[in-house]
């Protein structure tokens, strides 16, 4: 999202060898305001230049009254929010000239005033806006622990045909030992691997990203997790071992 320099040059090099998936955190799609035109313009330049296989964003807000919050903040799932989100996603898709995928957020706080379940909200959002879904299985496990719901049932409720990409990650527990935190600083948990296997068994393989941005281990450890995901997705038990 910058104009030039080494990061874009590295991305250019990667794009020459691989398909890429652009994953955004700053579009504030669930906020009352329309997408910031400067930010959307920068994303469009990036998309036009690198022609990624997927472009994704979050069901969250991060911008208000000229201030940006470096986080993915929650909203009550009301009709008003559904209409606003669908309109904002529509604006982004129109500007980019392509479909985007929307990721389910992590939950820490039980908000009142939801009038939709999360899975039906996501399905309706996809139906109205034409967006696809990016399902972060770790977010499901973390939210299910923190708010007390069944993660398997949550995943089972999703419309399979809308899911375009999957994220896996590790989590940690907060200082009080009560809340799980989507910290991306640990290996993918066995619970998340199990949920991933269940999801893939139902919907088939999907491009999968393992997010790790803290306590990054030796590269070989990351490759073992990559191989395990590959094994789950394509039924290759030898690789998953």
């Amino acid at each position, binding site marked *: *999202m*910058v*104009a*030039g*320099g*080494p*990061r*874009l*040059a590295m991305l250019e090099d990667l794009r020459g060898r691989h398909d890429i998936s652009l994953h955004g*955190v*700053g*579009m*504030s799609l669930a*906020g*009352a305001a329309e997408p*910031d035109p*400067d*930010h959307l313009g*920068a994303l469009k330049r990036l998309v036009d230049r690198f022609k990624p296989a997927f472009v994704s964003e979050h069901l969250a*807000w*991060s*911008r*208000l*009254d*000229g*201030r*940006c*919050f*470096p*986080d993915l*903040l*929650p*909203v*009550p799932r*009301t009709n*008003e*929010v559904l209409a*606003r989100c669908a309109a904002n996603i529509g604006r982004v898709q129109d500007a980019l000239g392509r479909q985007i995928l929307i990721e389910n957020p992590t939950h*820490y*706080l*039980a908000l009142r005033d939801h009038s939709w379940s999360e899975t039906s909200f996501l399905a309706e959002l996809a139906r109205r806006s034409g967006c696809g879904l990016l399902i972060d299985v770790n977010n499901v496990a973390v939210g299910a622990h*923190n708010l007390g719901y069944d993660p398997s049932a949550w995943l089972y409720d999703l419309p399979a045909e809308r899911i375009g990409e999957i994220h896996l990650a590790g989590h940690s527990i*907060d200082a*009080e030992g*009560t*809340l799980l*935190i989507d910290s991306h600083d640990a290996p993918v948990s066995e619970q998340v691997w199990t949920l991933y296997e269940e999801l893939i068994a139902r919907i088939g393989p999907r491009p999968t990203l393992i997010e790790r941005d803290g306590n990054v281990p030796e590269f070989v450890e990351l490759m073992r997790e990559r191989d395990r995901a590959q094994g789950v997705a394509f039924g290759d038990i030898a690789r998953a071992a």
Partner: protein
Amino acid sequence: MQPELIQFQRDFASALDRPAQGPMAVYRNTVIHGAVEALQANYPVVEQIIGEEMFEHVAVDFASTCPPASPVLALYGREFGDWLMHQRWIGDLPYLPDVARVERLHVACLFAPDKEPIPREQVRNVTPTATLRLHPAVQFAWLSTPAMSIWLAHQRPIGSEIAPEWKAEGALFARPEPFVVHAPRIGATAHRLLAGFRLGETVSIAMKAAKRLYPLEDCSAVLASLVNLGVFVAPDRKRN
């Protein structure tokens, strides 16, 4: 208008600005640490000078006064140098705001648009009435402290004691290629030339002004060194 949603967002944002426990503390910590980590990434020498613990306190203070206004955190903290100058404790470290300004020049240079610099052989054809346009990644400043010398000393892999001469100096950052950054300390002549070119002066006007101000300097050699650093893009012929 989204009256209920915007009211929800404003209430949530106010709650983020107050100390919290439980779930709200998770959001509050993420928001604060997002800004602190971005500032750490952009001001590593300031952090080395004052230490990690103090930097974190300073960054939290800064972020509460100047929270991010853009989601692109790679460019966060533009006002940090000026803000530092107004901190009560800065009297003990009078060079620190300038070191922060140098780090800002570096960040701005790194993420500016890419462009081909003017080839050296083309420079010979530049007429006195031509203007030399600065490369979009060029950043420079004149500093009243030896902050560029301090910054340069912190780029060495092994730290050592430094005793820079306490005088004003210039800082220049140029990035002729995506992965090539030149970061020299510059003198007043180079700074005068760069400032003139930034204003759109022709080669002859900028050179005359520099020679008048600094008659003992070899202004042609200074200009040649700037060309070698990749400071200019292809020239425009001045239209009459």
